[in-house]
C-alpha cells in the first residue's frame, strides 16, 4: 500500500513541478484526471479479481465496446428506460465474462487464450450488431438519410458532475465499484477463495474450496465491470462505438500491476488498484496539460511504468 502510494506521490510531485502555467493547481484538472481514469479504473477493478486468481482477462476492452454498443442501441434506438437498459447491459457483460470463465474452468484453457478468443469474438459481435458504425443519435432511415434524436437523459446523468461540479459522476461510479469489489475481496468468502486459488490452486481444492465456481465468478465479475465501464463510455461519448475500449485491457492490466498486485496471483487488493488508477490518470493528465508530443508520451509512460513497478518490488531478504 505504502509503495503504491509512493508511486502516486512521485507522479503528483511531477505534476507540481510541471504545472503548465498553474493548470495543475486548478481543481478542474484533478476532476478531469480522475474522470478520464475512471473507465480504466472500473475495468481494472474486475481485472484485479481475475489477476488475483493468477489469470488475466484480455477481453475486458472488447466487452466494454460490445456493451457500449448494446447499451446505446437500447437507450437511443429503442428508447428503453435506464431501469431496463442498465441491468440488461450488465447482464450481457457478465455473460460474456462467464463464457471466458467457463472456457478457463472446464476445458481448462489458458486464461490468456480463452480471453483472447473472447476478445476478438466480442469485438466481432459489437461490429455485427451495430452494423460496423457507431450507434449514435443520428438514426439511419435506411436510404442514406438520417433522423436525429435527443441524447438520452440518463447519458447526461452519467456524464454529469456533483459537488458543485468538482467530481464527475463516472468517478463516483468507479469509487463505488472499487469499494464494492474491495469489500468482496477482503470480507467475502469468495474473495478469500480467489486469493487461495491464485496462491495454490491444488491446496485450495484440497481444502474444499469451490475452486471452479469461484474462478468462473472472477471472470463474470470482470465482465460485469467491463459492462459498467461500457455504459460509462457510451454515456460520455453519447454513442456506442463498436471500436470503443480497444487496447483498454492493457491499460487496466498496467493499472493493476502499477498498484502492486502480483501478476502471478495470490496477492494484491482493491486499494492498490485505486492508487494505480490515480497514478495512471494523473500521469496522463500531466503529460496532456504540458502538451507533450505523442512520441515523448509513449516513452515517458514506459519509463514511469517500470519505475513505478520497481518501487513496488518487495524487498528480497
Amino acid at each position, binding site marked *: 500500500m505504502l509503495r503504491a502510494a509512493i508511486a502516486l506521490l512521485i507522479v503528483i510531485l511531477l505534476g507540481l513541478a510541471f504545472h503548465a502555467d498553474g493548470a495543475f493547481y486548478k481543481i478542474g484538472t484533478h476532476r478531469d484526471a480522475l474522470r478520464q481514469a475512471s473507465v480504466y479504473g472500473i475495468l481494472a477493478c474486475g481485472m484485479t479479481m481475475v489477476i488475483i486468481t493468477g489469470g488475466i482477462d484480455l477481453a475486458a476492452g472488447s466487452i466494454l465496446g460490445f456493451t457500449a454498443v448494446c447499451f446505446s442501441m437500447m437507450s437511443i434506438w429503442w428508447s428503453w428506460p435506464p431501469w431496463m437498459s442498465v441491468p440488461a447491459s450488465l447482464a450481457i457483460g457478465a455473460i460474456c465474462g462467464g463464457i471466458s470463465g467457463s472456457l478457463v474452468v472446464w476445458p481448462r484453457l489458458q486464461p490468456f487464450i480463452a480471453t483472447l478468443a473472447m476478445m*476478438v469474438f466480442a469485438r466481432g459481435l459489437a461490429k455485427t450488431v451495430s452494423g460496423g458504425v457507431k450507434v449514435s443519435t443520428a438514426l439511419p432511415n435506411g436510404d442514406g438519410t438520417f433522423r436525429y434524436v435527443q441524447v438520452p437523459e440518463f447519458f447526461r446523468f452519467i456524464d454529469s458532475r456533483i459537488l458543485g461540479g468538482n467530481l464527475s459522476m463516472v468517478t463516483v461510479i468507479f469509487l463505488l465499484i472499487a469499494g464494492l469489489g474491495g469489500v468482496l475481496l477482503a470480507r467475502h468468502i469468495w474473495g478469500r477463495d480467489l486469493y487461495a486459488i491464485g496462491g495454490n490452486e491444488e491446496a485450495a481444492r484440497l481444502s474444499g474450496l469451490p475452486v471452479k465456481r469461484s474462478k468462473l465468478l472472477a471472470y463474470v465479475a470482470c465482465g460485469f465491470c467491463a459492462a459498467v465501464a461500457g455504459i460509462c463510455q457510451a454515456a460520455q461519448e453519447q454513442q456506442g462505438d463498436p471500436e470503443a475500449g480497444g487496447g483498454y485491457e492493457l491499460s487496466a492490466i498496467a493499472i493493476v500491476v502499477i498498484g502492486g498486485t502480483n501478476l502471478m496471483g495470490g496477492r494484491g487488493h482493491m486499494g492498490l488498484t485505486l492508487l494505480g488508477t490515480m497514478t495512471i490518470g494523473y500521469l496522463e493528465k500531466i503529460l496532456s496539460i504540458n502538451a507533450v508530443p505523442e512520441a515523448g508520451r509513449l516513452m515517458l509512460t514506459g519509463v514511469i511504468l517500470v519505475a513505478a513497478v520497481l518501487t513496488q518490488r518487495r524487498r528480497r531478504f
Partner: protein
Amino acid sequence: MHRIFLPVLILILAGCSGSSKPEGAKTFTIGMSQCNLGEPWRVQMNADIDAAAKKHSNLKMVFKDAQNDTLKQRAHIEELVSASVDAIIVSPKESQPLTEPIAKAYQAKIPVIVLDRAVQGDQFTCFIGADNKKIGKAAGEWLRKKLGPKATVVELKGLMTSIPGQDRNQGFRSGIEGSGLNVAFEADMKWLEPDARKEMESALARLSKIDAVYAHNDPGAHGAWLAAKAANREREMLFIGIDALPHEGIAYVKQGILNATFQYPTGGAEAIDTVLKVLSGQQVPKTIVLGSRVYTADNVEQGGEALP
C-alpha cells in the same frame, strides 16, 4: 487481431448486394479490396460503392476486407485476379508493398481503379483520391475568415505518424499562415473521440480563452465539444472537423455541435462511374482528384457547398 470476425460483416454486406438482373444483359463482376473496415470512413466508402453499383443491375460486387493487414490485402487482390473479375477497385493499405500486385492485375488486362491512397508507377487504370492538404488548407482559410487576428486556436491532430494526419496539419498551417491566428495548444488524439475529449480538457485547463477548435476528424471535434460543454464553455468557441460522414460530421452540424465540417470524399460513386466507363470502352483520365465540400449550419440542408 480483433478484426478476425469481420468476415461475418462482409458476408452480410456482400449478401445485400445481389440484385435482380434483366435477361440477356451482360453482367460484370467487380471486386472491391478494402484495406480496413474498422474505420467508419471506409465503411462509408464501401457503402457508397455499393449504393452506386446497385443503381446498375448488371453490376455484381464482391467485397473483401484486409483487416488492416497489407499481406492479406495482397492475397485478396491475387484472389480477385484468379477469379477473373471484370474490374478491381482497391483502396490500398500501403503504397509500396501493394504496387506490384496491383500492377500484375493491370497486366492481366483487368481494369484497376485505385482509391484514396496512391500506388507507385503507372501500372493501374485510374487513381481517384482527395487531397488532404487542400482540405486542411480550406479549413484554415475558413477559420481565418471567421475569426479576427490574434484568435486562439486548439488543434487536435490525428495520428501524426500517418500521412493524412500530417497533410491535414500542414494544409491547415498553410491556410492560416500570416493571419495572426495562434495555435496555442496542439495534441495527438489518435483519431479517437475519448482521447480528443481528454486533450481538450487539458486545453481548457490551460487556456482561459479559446476561439476555435480544429480537429483532424469529426469524432475528434465532437469529443472536444463534449469537453467544452462539460466546462460550460462550448459557446465561447467554434468547432470544425473533417470527413463529413452523413451520420457523424454532417449530423453534428445539423445538431448545432459543429460549426463546419469539411468533406473528405470517399470516391465510391466516382469509382463505379469510372469502372462503367472503362468497361464500355471509354477513355478515362489517369488521375481524378475529388472535390471537397464544406457543410455549415447555413448550407447543410442544401447539401453543402463545393470548395473551390
